């Protein structure tokens, strides 16, 4: 594989972001414990912005770029992408964008959090850097799509895409549709406004564009984890995925329903009518279905694998799963967390249940189960396979990896559990100090804030252990594990001709239509209200 070094470099950058992000994360949970004051509120919000950007944008994007490139090359049996030059350019642009945005963030001139709602204004460099990062991902996506086309043209025109590649293409389709929103927000609103070229922007329109992007963004994170669940997990167990067809249906449903759902982040906003909010409630619940199908398919796949290994009984087969393998236990735990994340998500999605939890600690509790566990733990778990595959070196310590997974599980249970309860009790998210002058309403919060902090410490320890293990693996002795590890991440070529479900062009067209239905009229509504907009309030 010619792009091995680039792929590996992408993983390493993502791990660096994970490490720094985890440090900032622990700072926040400690700071929120009543009586503990480690840093000023300015520093807290700088760290909060850095945590969000590093974890949600840098860690995920670099990891996903490398994972997707690897999956496409392995599953199509190709030696390089369409253009290794384009690949390099993409990584360079994403790195450049990251550095451009990191500079103002770390110097406290962009403490606007990763949602950067105007009229808080960050340094223009922050918005420009974020835009460069997105442009880099477009180059990356184009190169992978061209790679798939090249494969098609070299004698594979009548063949189904391998499932992993099908998943990658679906992820890219979602990404291209989603990033239209953030590109519009940056280019039409925030960049000219932050440079002083226009006086005002409409913050509601900005939220509208941001969440048009912000929710499908979570599927850009989640679908690569699904790709691992659908392709790597069966290989680890020595079986085929329970239903290749339904796995494809899942990806198609995500293409259709990931974008026209953004208003479930804006239920509490003025300026958007009940009817539009309710329409987005319906589409949001529609996204529940592919995850329900996934729950069945991956459980059935695991059961097949376990019975093959001699597992018996109604539930006794669970014990026959390869729990001693850290890659497996990480992925299995990620799926368990995701089930709880999905249940909590149904609360967020409820048009009239949402106001119990909106903007409370419940929300970070929820997203640490989804992106922070389903995605992050899957990425760490699959790293234990990918690193040996890419470097030809033996994983430094399986035991350490097992402890790492267990620490993540315990830490997340404490952190996320406490945050969910805090949210229901009304404790707000994203707040430096939640004692509010010792108001009686906040008194029950203290033990939970302590529990969340303890969880945060365990999570940081888990990340440190992961990084240490990765570092030692890279400098460790070569071993003959490469072949075996590579086999585990390679799905056998599918048989049969493409069916209706493989017609991704058709489903992209339907998805765009749904987006138009869900967004055109309410966006025109917002424009027709004619709010004069708001001038910038500098945060730098």
């Amino acid at each position, binding site marked *: 594989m010619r792009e091995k070094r680039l792929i590996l470099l992408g993983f390493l950058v993502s791990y660096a972001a994970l490490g720094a992000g985890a440090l900032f994360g622990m700072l926040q949970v400690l700071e929120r414990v009543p009586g503990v004051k480690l840093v000023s509120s300015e520093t807290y*919000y700088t760290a909060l912005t850095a945590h969000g950007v590093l974890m949600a944008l840098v860690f995920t994007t670099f990891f996903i770029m490398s994972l997707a490139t690897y999956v496409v090359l392995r599953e199509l049996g190709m030696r390089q992408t369409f253009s290794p030059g384009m690949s390099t350019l993409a990584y360079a642009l994403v790195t450049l964008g990251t550095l451009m945005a990191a500079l103002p963030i770390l110097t406290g001139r962009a403490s606007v959090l990763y949602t950067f709602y105007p009229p808080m204004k960050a340094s223009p460099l922050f918005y420009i850097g974020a835009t460069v990062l997105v442009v880099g991902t477009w180059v990356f996506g184009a190169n992978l799509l061209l790679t798939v086309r090249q494969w098609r043209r070299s004698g594979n025109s009548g063949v189904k895409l391998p499932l992993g590649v099908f998943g990658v293409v679906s992820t890219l389709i979602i990404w291209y549709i989603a990033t239209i929103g953030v590109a519009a927000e940056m280019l039409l609103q925030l960049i000219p406004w932050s440079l002083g070229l226009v006086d005002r922007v409409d913050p509601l329109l900005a939220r509208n564009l941001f969440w048009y992007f912000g929710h499908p963004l979570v599927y850009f994170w989640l679908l690569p984890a699904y790709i691992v669940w659908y392709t790597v997990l069966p290989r680890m167990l020595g079986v085929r995925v329970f*239903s290749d067809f339904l796995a494809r249906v899942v990806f198609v449903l995500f293409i259709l329903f990931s974008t026209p759902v953004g208003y479930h982040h804006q239920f*509490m906003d003025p300026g958007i009518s009940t009817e539009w909010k309710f329409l987005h409630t319906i589409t949001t*619940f529609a996204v529940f279905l592919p995850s329900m199908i996934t729950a069945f398919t991956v459980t059935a796949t695991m059961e097949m694998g376990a019975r093959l290994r001699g597992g018996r009984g109604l539930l006794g087969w669970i014990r026959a799963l390869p729990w001693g393998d850290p890659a497996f236990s990480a992925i299995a735990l990620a799926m368990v967390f995701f089930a709880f994340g999905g249940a909590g998500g149904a609360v967020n999605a409820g048009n009239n249940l949402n*106001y119990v939890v909106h903007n409370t600690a419940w929300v970070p509790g929820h997203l640490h189960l989804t992106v922070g566990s389903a995605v992050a733990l899957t990425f760490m778990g699959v790293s234990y396979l990918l690193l040996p595959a890419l470097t030809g070196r033996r994983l430094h310590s399986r035991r350490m990896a097992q402890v790492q997974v267990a620490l993540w599980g315990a830490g997340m249970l404490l952190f996320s559990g406490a945050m969910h309860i805090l949210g229901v009790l*009304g404790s707000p998210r994203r707040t*430096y100090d939640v004692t509010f002058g010792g108001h009686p309403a906040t008194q029950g919060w203290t033990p939970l804030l302590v529990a969340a902090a303890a969880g945060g410490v365990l999570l940081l320890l888990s990340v440190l252990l992961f990084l240490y293990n990765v570092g030692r693996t890279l400098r460790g002795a070569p071993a003959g594990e490469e072949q075996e590890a590579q086999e585990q991440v390679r799905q056998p070529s599918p048989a049969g001709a493409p069916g209706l479900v493989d017609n991704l062009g058709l489903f992209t067209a339907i998805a765009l239509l749904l987006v138009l239905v869900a967004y055109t009229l309410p966006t025109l509504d917002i424009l027709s209200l004619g709010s004069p907009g708001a001038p910038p309030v500098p945060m730098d």
Partner: protein
Amino acid sequence: MNRYERAWLIFAVLMVAAFLGIIAYFNFAAGLKPPHDVEVIDPLRVSQDPRFSQPRVEEVEPGKRYNIYMVARMWSYYPREIQVPRGAEVRFYITSPDVQHGFQVVGTNVQANVIPGYVTVIDARFEKPGEYLIVCNEYCGRGHHFMRAKLRVTEGY
């Protein structure tokens, strides 16, 4: 398709349908709607609007209906203390002259976003007397954690 798989799918579809049915009922029949008003205002002229030049509790119908005109700004609410009798119909009108804010009455389901350029309207009724804490739950700068107010719900009028 495997029969267990089919059964699971039917269960999933029915569950989602039931959830949506319940949400629709409370939204359209029981009137439990999130904010949806569409009034705009110039954030630089908030102090020239008679409702917000003097943020206050307005008694529309003694003991029964109250309008509360509130300004949320970095990093305080005006008025800072509100008093209404239990069971009264309370309508909040809130706007911001600077950045986005949140408005959340802790321990209730009364909350909304406050967005400069718009007037947020929330209808509420408080059945339990006592002192409630109002907090800003949308990050609004380094003093965000100072932003709070008190709501006193009295036993009777």
